[in-house]
């Protein structure tokens, strides 16, 4: 939490519980309500973290990762998905 460094290593022991909490937040929401709810959730967590430097690092990796995926999904055509010989 300190050192102004975003932790990108595994930091949870109960991933499935956490994931379900996130999904259950949206029960009965419309898509639009869900978007707003996610924004509220981010704001609540950002306030809890209380560190704009950490936030900026998170924003950076998310932007880069999303743009990288945008390029991959649009450009690449799948060809051959056989299990490879060995690694």
């Amino acid at each position, binding site marked *: 939490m300190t050192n102004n460094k975003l932790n990108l290593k595994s930091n949870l022991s109960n*991933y499935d519980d956490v994931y379900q909490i996130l999904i259950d937040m949206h029960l009965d929401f419309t898509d639009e309500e869900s978007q707003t709810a996610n924004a509220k959730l981010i704001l609540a967590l950002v306030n809890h973290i209380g560190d704009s430097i950490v936030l900026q690092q998170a924003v950076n990796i998310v932007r880069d990762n999303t743009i990288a995926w945008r390029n991959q999904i649009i450009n*690449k055509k799948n060809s051959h998905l056989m299990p490879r010989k060995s690694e």
Partner: protein
Amino acid sequence: MPYIPPNYEPIVPDAVASKVTEKTSVLIVGAGPIGLALALDMGTMGHKVIIINRETKLTDGSRAICYAKRPLEIFDRLGLAEKMVKKGVEWNIGRVFFKNRTEPVYSFDLLPVKEQKLPAMINIQQYYNEEYNIEALEKLDNVELRWGNTLISIEEKTNSVNATVQTERGNYNLEADWLIACDGSSSPTRKMMDMGFGGETFQDNFLIADVKFKKKYPTERHFWFDPSFNPGQSVLLHKQPDNVWRIDFQVGWDIDRKEIVRPENVTPRIKAMFGEDVEFEYEWISVYTFNCRIIDSMTKGRVIFAGDSAHLVSPFGARGANTGFQDTDNLAWKLDLIIKGKADHRLLQSYDEERSLAAKINILNSTRSTDFITPKSAVSTHFRDAVLQLSTEYEFARGFVNSGRLSLPVSYPDSSLNTADDEIWPAGVPPGTNCIDAPVLEQGETQWLLNSLGWMFKLLIFVDPDYVSQDQYQVLVSLEKDEIPISCIFISQAAISGVETIIDIKGLAAERYGICKTGVYLVRPDQYVAARWHHIDINKIRNAVQRSIGYSVEEKVTKQ
């Protein structure tokens, strides 16, 4: 060559002609993997067992192919595991793919289980397990397998169940002390007993193609989320023995079940996946819709349900047969004590208590996998996709990827059979949890701790080799003469003269059981911990045994 299940002669018992009511202690309905495992358990304990099965052959196709560690431990107790592991396939590398990205979003290595006898899981066709089980049953004179015998009605009596059984030459009556329904997801017994089976049907279908490729490929598990060859759906690929590969296509709700399984309709899917020139032959093609359901109660009077007749889960995480084997493991010793008159219906209630809990936990886990694999809303899809996209670069996201969680044994921390800790245990195996394996030395030979446990109540005594009192030793050994016999296993870092001891060669048993110097574990016949103490107290041990067979401690039924 696709697998051809062996055919068995339909059995027509003498009772059909004589009209005399036949009697048996245990009647098992259904010779699937669960019924067979229960028959082997009860039969090995010496009970008279009759298994009836409507069909005259084993199931076609490979069906349940994943056998997790705990079921393998159960089969090791029953003497089949070594054969299964030898034949089975162990995979360690798993790869997760997403959309049309040809490189995996990430790969993982299922590190082998260290210093335990059995692996985390193996893949093996269901029919091998069934064949090995039948071979073992054929050696037991007290077990009879009747092919072509169909249960058509049940009449409940005060101390028995009267079953009417149909054969090709007519019906006969079978009076059983106990009837165990292992007759699968559409259990006729469950319908005859008018039991509710609540839950939900998922509006989705899966197409299974088991194929043999001409080329050899590395033994890896591959899972695709939303690939271009099956858009919007998932595909799973993993290996079985004999170079058979299981491919699981998610195909959605609106399908023609007859058409989709035709080889000419499956082949384009496989070519889209592997390329036009792929060479293969089919072993088995099937389609299924899955349900998550649980029966109202796993027992009703003298009728007991085990396996799919009692609970259904989604296939993700291989929790169907794996859960069923743990049902029979939990049931067999309880039924044994009840048949011998040493315990009563309360012990049977604990079967429902413990295994219904396990079924619910399995349903929760498999439902979570399903929700990740098949998101139910737009926002859920966004979360799933976000996890997969981040997983290419960041370790933290990979923990969320859920393509089916490995089936692990369920603990019963609140079971009425447990005696709660009355001392502090910072580590070890808590009451209601299955025992963990460790390498040991027994009479100079390398053995495994779990092979010393099971079948009866065992007292696992971690001894300080510097001091063992002869008096205490004599009292402990005499526990074997109790009404509920308790057999002592002494374990120590070094040999002790005058005491038959297994040696904890690597100190791993002490470490895994949280032992500093001394400690005692009371272990149930199904290798679950009933109670534990730091020091030996004979009264506490006897009280804990009472409790773990369903009696209250005040009753004092244990002969002393």
